[in-house]
């Protein structure tokens, strides 16, 4: 049974539809990410789930309870859905303890609940601090503790890490991830950062133009995107022309196994998606003279070095596929521009429409 379910949800402003029939199933206790570019309707979706706005059409339910279906509408204060907006939105007129205890009863505030919550998010000593004295990461933790104080049935996070520095972001993200796991609260995280979605969530839904275009486990989405646009949105990709036959794809990179498509194996011509990390690159001269020369010949046109790895742009020789191929290699394998190489593809590839 899914904890949070959104069915055929429509919402627009001033005659312009923002959400057009969103379908979303968030399993109980899971962390689900809604991934999309800015302006795709992510925040609107969260605001509807939180109850700040009403749906035009469709249904939102939490467990067995209908929150909004056009007729019934449960006010936000009666949904018990926690909400952590961008930038935290802490109450500036209250101290940290006042923020965390906002939703609690007087007795609970007097007791040790606030202290426990603060300790849970790792800032047990900051209860009497004023909000503007906190760092960005601390503010996020307070916002999270405040939302968790009421033991919400679902928790909504709206780009909670986007205001943090890159170095801090990974750290806070991991901590929050661990905490949510431990609490087992059903969570919807909205983000435009595909790395964040893939690394944090059990379940990812991609929102595009007001519709969920695909949802599933992170690896599923990454390996089997619904279309070329989605493939590119989730990570770097090579689109290679192929001729299909009996579950294999014949391409310039050789004959490659096809991932088991949900339907029949495709026929005739088409495109396959090859992720850059599926390409192995060796310097042409180093190729062992004993074996037969394998793989596609190419020359490095550009090298983007990231430290832990590098992305090589390789032009096939003689010119085959029109675009340069992208290959991800270990950082120490970053090769100078102009190096002649051989490219070997491995692993199954995915056919795209």
């Amino acid at each position: 049974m899914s904890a949070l379910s959104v069915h055929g949800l429509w919402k627009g402003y001033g005659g312009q539809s923002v959400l057009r029939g969103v379908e979303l199933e968030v399993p109980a206790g899971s962390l689900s990410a809604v991934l999309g570019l800015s302006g795709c309707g992510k925040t609107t979706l969260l605001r509807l789930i939180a109850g700040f706005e009403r749906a035009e059409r469709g249904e939102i339910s939490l467990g067995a309870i209908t929150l909004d279906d056009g007729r019934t509408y449960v006010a936000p204060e009666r949904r018990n859905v926690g909400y952590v907006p961008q930038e935290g939105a802490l109450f500036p007129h209250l101290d940290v303890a006042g923020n965390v205890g906002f939703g609690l009863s007087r007795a609970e505030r007097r007791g040790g609940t606030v202290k426990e919550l603060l300790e849970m998010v790792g800032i047990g000593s900051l209860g009497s601090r004023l909000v503007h004295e906190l760092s960005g990461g601390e503010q996020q933790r307070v916002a999270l503790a405040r939302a968790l104080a009421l033991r919400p049935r679902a928790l909504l996070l709206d780009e909670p890490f986007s205001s943090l520095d890159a170095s801090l972001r990974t750290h806070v993200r991991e901590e929050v991830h661990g905490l949510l796991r431990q609490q087992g609260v059903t969570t919807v995280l909205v983000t435009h950062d595909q790395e964040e979605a893939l690394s944090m969530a059990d379940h990812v839904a991609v929102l595009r133009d007001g519709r969920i275009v695909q949802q599933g486990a992170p690896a599923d989405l990454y390996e089997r995107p619904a279309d070329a646009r989605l493939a590119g949105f989730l990570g770097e990709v090579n689109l290679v022309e192929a001729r299909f036959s009996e579950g294999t794809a014949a391409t310039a990179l050789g004959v490659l196994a096809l991932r088991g498509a949900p339907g029949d194996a495709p026929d005739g011509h088409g495109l396959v998606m090859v992720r850059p990390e599926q390409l192995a690159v060796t310097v042409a001269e180093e190729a062992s003279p004993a074996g037969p020369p394998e793989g596609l010949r190419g020359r490095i046109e550009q090298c983007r070095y990231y430290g832990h790895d590098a992305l090589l742009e390789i032009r096939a020789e003689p010119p085959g596929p029109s675009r340069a191929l992208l290959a991800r290699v270990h950082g120490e394998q970053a090769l100078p521009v102009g190096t002649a190489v051989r490219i070997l593809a491995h692993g199954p590839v995915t056919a795209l429409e």
Partner: protein
Amino acid sequence: MSTLAPAEHLGSRLSHTWSERRRWPLVSVAGGALAAGAVLLPLAFLVVQAQRSGWGEVQRLLLRHSVAVLLWNSVRLAAACTALCAVLGVGAAWLVERTDVPARRLWAVLLVLPLGIPDFVVAFGWISIDPGFHGYLAAVMVMTLSLYPLVYLPVAAALANLDPGLEEAARSLGAGPWKAFAKLTMRQIWPALLGGCLLVTLGLLAEYGAFEILQYQTFTVAIFTEFKLGFDTVAACTLSLVLVMVSVAVLGGELTLSGRGRTFRPGPGARRGAPRIALGRRRIGAVGALALLAALALGVPVGTLGYWILHGGSSTLPSTSILAAAGHTALFSAAAAILSTLLAIPVATLAIRHRNRLTLLIERISYLPMALPGLVIALGLVSFSVRYAFSLYQSSAELIIAYAILFLPLAIVGVRSAMAQASPRLEEVGRSLGANRSSVFLRITLPLIAPGLGAAFALVFISSATELTATLLLRPTGVNTLATQFWVYTTNFSYGAAAPYAALMVAISAVPAYLLSRRMRTISRTGGPR
């Protein structure tokens, strides 16, 4: 069954579209409608009263009163004063904000303080020096000296908040410092300058006391004479309507002009102080000019008040009556400030949180008293209470209501800027934490806008405490406020007896005027009304 279905469907659709639109915050709408109604009521009764005698009579009155003379008096006064205020205001603001003139902080305070001295007290100061000080030039001088801070304040704020990057860019494109100021900076401060000039003109049209002292005939003086001496409410109301039309024309003119020079700040980059122009040897001249302005605008009224208090000769100061007057003033002003602030909350809430045509209309109407002389509102209220609510006539309640309507725009400005800074996101989070609408208002919105409520209260309190014209018309019989008692003594030429009352009024409003000067800057940063 099946025949019922379409109707049912329609019903649910209707309720659907209603509820799914922004749900109407009923309390706010009711409060906003009450505020707008309170503003429109006196105006409506002005019209009712004026047309009671028919159109022919109105025409005859307009001719008899030589409205043309009054118009000419108002126009030539407004033209000269507004131009002088613009020159003095911009010049002083530029010296203080953009040059290295010495003692800038001191000037910034001294130049604003005249705002805390009621215009009729300034007129009193001059005439108590020279009894022959009256007529057109006297009126121009007195009004310029008391109103120029209305230009100085917003222009100084605009200059201080100016993005120095723009001027630097102009300089890097080959414009000299003077050219950059003329071509760029003037454009940037244009809205502030126009806004200030508008306030000056509206202030001139509304002023009564100073012109009565200086014996200069304007609409307000004529209206007051008709009403108080001639007991002719029809004539008074007819003239008031002409005055309202002039004010509305001024307001419209400002709106058209201010539409042109839009300003914008390119990026939210961090603020830096703008570079100051080194005056060199001209510093002495600059200091002299500022000192002269401060001496005339501040020194003369304060000095004369001091003189009359010390050498007034009326050693038999009726200290009980000054206490009683101060008590009444404080009571009326505080009540009006509370009422006005309470009315401003729903208007500001609607304007910021539920913006649409209706709420915009409510807001616009609520700002209307800014263009309405106190005399006009008082007359409208008198016309209303005499005919429909006689128990209200000349009661404390009526005076308090008049103050509250008259200074509602000030209260709205105060509440609105605070409301604009309080993010609605916080209220939403509050609701997701289990607090309902009213609880969110009490626990989140109210604490967040508290500084704005305080500012609104203070602004209305000061303005009410120094209000003369409406008070003269509406005060309960036998009750005197500081302003009316001062007025009684001044018109009897008992300057010594009048001075302590004026001094007390100045004391009440000087400190807040100083605070206002600092607040104006933050308001201009966050965007004021409109």
